């Protein structure tokens, strides 16, 4: 039982670096065997899921082989009454949701491009969507992981029960590690019930200060939205606040939001297709263009962050800024027009965002911009431990070497 390698193809390239070989294991055992073989020959390898977040990070310093997970695409175990699912890394989020929906369940993750994004890639890239406001980042939904280490060792962390503190938290540690600590081969997720009802209130024409004020007013009123995102509306923003749950609760929350003075003026209540279209518009917007920046800051600094990102938006063609006021995250997308101006604006934004651990990461960028700006920004403060961790799990630095923050 083994997966034969094939010559690398252009589609296997990571940030322009094409591997000589590609391998597509169909089972965990094949993946482990492939990793052992790669280790024996000391070949550098990177992992490919649906390719939706390949723009993250620095091009690997060397890359001999790509390991694609698309044949690892099965649901290993779904226990509806326990609200957990164990799934192979290469299954797309869309396919998983279709598996779960007949049971009245979902994985409460909603990054863009669900028909392409794989669960392994979502974990590795810490991908997120608007519902993160309610359900948290990937790390809060992953309860178990099977990882194939650089040397081919198969190790599991966490388990199949939501509440579990036995051993170090490998599942969370691997979230966002971008395949530089090991191959995330299987993931166990906590599931949530599909809501009975959903509605989104859209409030147009808000400046960033007003976005923050309306969001705070809703939270102070003890409303509990599942998603809060401010989408471009001319020079201003259209604040979309989504409620999900049982019918009476959703209706009540919508009415109460509409009654808040901070949410006054030209509001719309969207349900069904209109609501879906609004959120699909959000997804399309953050994926538009060839540059994408994810900025993080304290929620109270929303307006300052928006101001700090404006010059960068202006430096991009069709630059569009989406604000997540409860998360303290903004996503800026657009088309690269003037690399030098964009790089300078990115660096200026980083300086402005730096207090309290704020950051601005290039999630996608053409080589012309990468050449002028480190996609990650300043090295992380705990880089020395990160280096040692990388050294422990990938001592020969063969897993996408150099792709991660701090040159890891």
């Amino acid at each position, binding site marked *: 039982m083994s997966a034969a390698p094939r010559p690398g193809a252009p589609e296997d390239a990571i940030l322009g670096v094409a591997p000589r070989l590609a391998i597509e294991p169909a089972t965990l055992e094949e993946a482990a065997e492939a990793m052992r073989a790669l280790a024996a020959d000391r070949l550098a390898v990177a992992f490919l899921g649906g390719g939706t977040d390949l723009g993250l990070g620095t091009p690997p310093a060397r890359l001999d082989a790509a390991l694609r997970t698309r044949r690892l695409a099965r649901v290993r175990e779904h226990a509806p009454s326990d609200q957990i699912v164990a799934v192979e890394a290469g299954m797309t989020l869309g396919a998983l949701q279709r598996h779960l929906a007949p049971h009245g369940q979902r994985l409460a993750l909603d990054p863009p491009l669900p028909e392409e994004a794989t669960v392994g890639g979502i974990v590795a890239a810490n991908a997120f969507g608007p519902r993160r406001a309610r359900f*948290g*980042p990937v790390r809060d939904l992953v309860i178990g992981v099977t990882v194939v280490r650089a040397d081919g060792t198969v190790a599991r962390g966490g388990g*199949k029960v939501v*509440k579990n*503190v036995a051993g170090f938290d490998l599942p*969370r*540690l691997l979230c966002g590690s971008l395949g530089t600590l090991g191959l995330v081969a299987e993931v166990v997720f906590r599931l949530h*019930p599909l809501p009975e009802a959903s509605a989104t209130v859209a409030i147009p024409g808000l400046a960033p200060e007003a976005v923050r004020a309306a969001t705070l007013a809703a939270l102070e009123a003890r409303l509990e939205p599942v998603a809060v995102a401010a989408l471009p509306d001319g020079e201003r923003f259209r604040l979309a606040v989504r409620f999900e749950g049982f019918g009476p609760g959703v209706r009540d929350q919508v009415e109460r939001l509409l009654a808040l003075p901070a949410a006054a003026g030209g509001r719309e209540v969207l349900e069904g297709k209109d609501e879906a279209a609004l959120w699909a518009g959000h997804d399309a917007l953050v994926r538009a263009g060839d540059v994408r920046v994810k900025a993080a800051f304290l*929620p109270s600094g929303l307006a300052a962050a928006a101001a700090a990102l404006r010059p960068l938006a202006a430096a991009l063609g069709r630059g569009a800024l989406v604000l997540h006021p409860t998360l303290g995250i903004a996503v800026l997308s657009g088309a690269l027009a003037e690399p030098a101006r964009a790089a300078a604006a990115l660096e200026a934004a980083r300086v402005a965002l730096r207090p309290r651990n704020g950051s601005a990461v290039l999630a996608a960028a053409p080589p012309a911009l990468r050449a002028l700006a480190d996609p990650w920004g300043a090295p992380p403060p705990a880089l020395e431990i990160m280096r040692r961790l990388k050294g422990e799990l990938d001592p020969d630095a063969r897993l996408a070497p150099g792709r991660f923050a701090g040159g890891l």
Partner: protein
Amino acid sequence: MDPAATSRSPLARRMATVVGDRNVVTEPEELLVYECDGLVHGRTRPDLVVLPGSTAEVVEVVRLAREAGVPLVPRGAGTGLSGGARPVPGSVVVSLARMRRILELDLENGWARVEPGVINLDVTKAVAGAGWYYAPDPSSQSVCSIGGNVAENSGGAHCLKYGFTTHHVLAARVVLSDGSVVDLGGPAADAPGYDLLAALVGSEGMLGITVEATLRLLRRPEATRTFFATFPSTDEAGAAVSGIIAAGILPAAIEMMDRLAIVAAKAATGLDWPDVGAALLMDADGTRAEVEHVSARAVEIARASGALEIRLPRDEAERQLMWKGRKCAFAAVGRISPSYLVEDGVIPRSEIARVLREIERLAGEAGLRVANVFHAGDGNLHPLVLYDARNPGEEARAVALGAEILRLCIRSGGSITGEHGVGAEKASFMAEQFSADDLETMQRVRCAFDGAALMNPGKVFPTPRLCGERPGPYRPHPAEVAGLAERW
């Protein structure tokens, strides 16, 4: 300097120059209290206890210990139930009890930065007036400290909806065994780099000493509805839990007690609970309209599942009393048994009824009683194995029964611990729940933080391992030898 201080070891004297004489404990009678944590039946006397008062003092204490090659055992309030703060011979216990300041409150962004000795409930008290709270609520929350909560990834009754400590820690400042001070995470989201904070929370003091934690605060929900339902047996109560979850309801908490636990809670609190086979206590919280709907639906499901009686508290005082009955259940068991062991196994929620019957059978075989009071919503059992240490052999039988219950949890697809941690007590079971490769991988994480293996040795892992030590040389797989790899 008092006479005791002059007879101190050189290390103790050096420590005293850092933290002050009265913050070094060397007298045998004073060391007694540090021999164990909340798990009292496993004791080791430390050589020395130091109580640093600041991050700078912690750094110096760690450096001195490292120079002397002496292991460090961090200790919070000592309420842990897994022996996570149990000293090893020759160790220095570092108590963080003096570091109990709330350093910063930021309600604009919903967080508090606190020192590790701050008591869990005091965080909530500091922000309750403004309508906020700190969600993790272990039953010991009025005495346990944040540093210990971070080390053990402590839970509580409301984990089902709100998660554990790890969901609520935004950042930590940590002193590593080499004396360096590192900041992990931050109040802003998604800082580039590995999520080392995820590794720290729940690492049981083995990665470093947390000297500051930034905690997420939540706004108090608008409404909470509670009900108490009684059932003929745990079968019907388990069915009600499954039915409520299957209806798409996410309760804030849903707790189960069996007959013995109810008897004990009644004896301790004077609550007028009936003598029944099982009871559920459920909280729903959120917006008023949602909660009213959810609570009514859950009550219907409980009735349809065979509830004998449903009680709704008339007011907040009565609600608090119901919760008191639940939260004091461990201690209450002392009313019906001279001694007891607390287990903390987790099973898939759908297996509750079957596993409880199996526990009853195992208890019968052992000639012992087991009271069950637990977090039913997430399958986190707390079997309390009752015994009388005065009867020869009974304690050993209780320990053996506890072990069998943990094995039953592992076989059922669960875990040996849901919130108490592995500690010293359950380290040997880790090899039954995890493979050698799983554990070796976790050890590598430890090595990245504490290559000298000075931090809280003897916990979590069944077999100690030196960093840099690799378990045997790399052996190529037969397929590689056969030439598969050559083609690459």
